[in-house]
């Protein structure tokens, strides 16, 4: 069943795409989006490999881990968004500045 590898490679692609966006964008909201896409890529690899054996039903342990991961990701996103808003209020910028002086 090579559909599994298709999804696993798609997960790798999403991870690398997210990493690229995380590096090149300075805007914090875009960085948060990029981290979410990266996480989704990791989940996709996990679940794809869990469905690897075509004779057996999918492995439930990675599924449980991914459900846990999705909930953790949304709480981390909420915290990150509030931190971003606080940075914006404090400095008036939507990105982190390179030096601490300005």
């Amino acid at each position: 069943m090579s559909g599994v590898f298709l999804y696993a490679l798609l997960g790798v692609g999403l991870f690398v795409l997210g990493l690229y966006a995380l590096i090149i964008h300075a805007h914090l909201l875009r960085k948060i989006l990029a981290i979410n896409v990266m996480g989704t890529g990791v989940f996709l690899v996990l679940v794809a490999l869990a469905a690897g054996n075509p004779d057996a039903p999918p492995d439930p342990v990675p599924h449980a881990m991914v459900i846990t991961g999705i909930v953790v990701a949304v709480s981390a996103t909420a915290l990150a968004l509030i931190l971003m808003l606080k940075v914006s209020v404090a400095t008036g910028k939507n990105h982190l500045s390179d030096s601490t002086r300005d």
Partner: protein
Amino acid sequence: MTDNRKTGKALRLLLVSLLCAIAAWLGYAVLGLSLSHVGLGQLVGANLEASGVSHPVTAVLLNFRGYDTLLEMGVLLVALLGVWSLGGMPDYDESSPGPVLDILSRLLIPMLMLVAGYLLWVGAHAPGGAFQAGSVLGAAGVLMMLAGWRLDSRFAGLLLRVVMVSGLGVFVMVSTAMLLIGNGFLEFSPPMAGELILLIEAVATMSIGATLAALFLGSRPAVGPDK
């Protein structure tokens, strides 16, 4: 200026080629994994009887790997504490929601609550469970807040905090009770396991729903003078 742009272009080219290398390496690693491994699926299947539920994912979440779920409830609580202690985000503008949202939310919220209850109950033997039900409840809470509803200040004090902590609290208490009976921590034994899991899941659903809705609001609801 052109020099700057040139170095920027060169850097971006370097970055893209590095990322391509990472992608190729990761892809090679993923393709090299053997798919014929047994995994834990058979082990879960063999012990499903002892878990108290008949759906393998729920069995893994609440019984076999209860630590994950316990710590996840902890993460949710810590995220909420972080948001609250950063505090002081301005509330959304008090604009009237408009008739469509108003009527739609009146229709949808009872339906969402029903779906959450169904997902919670069905989680024992089919896809569903506390997290899905909790997130549907959280979505109902978000919809209510968008329609202009705010938590009454009478409930925003102790009661709200108790609901937030209850998911983690009940989980820890039940697990500790197992320790006192003579089982291990987080080790639910067959005669009562199904009921205990349902109890934990029900409280966790409420707690997850309330926590997610509170994360959306972004600041701690004001506590009234008469608490």
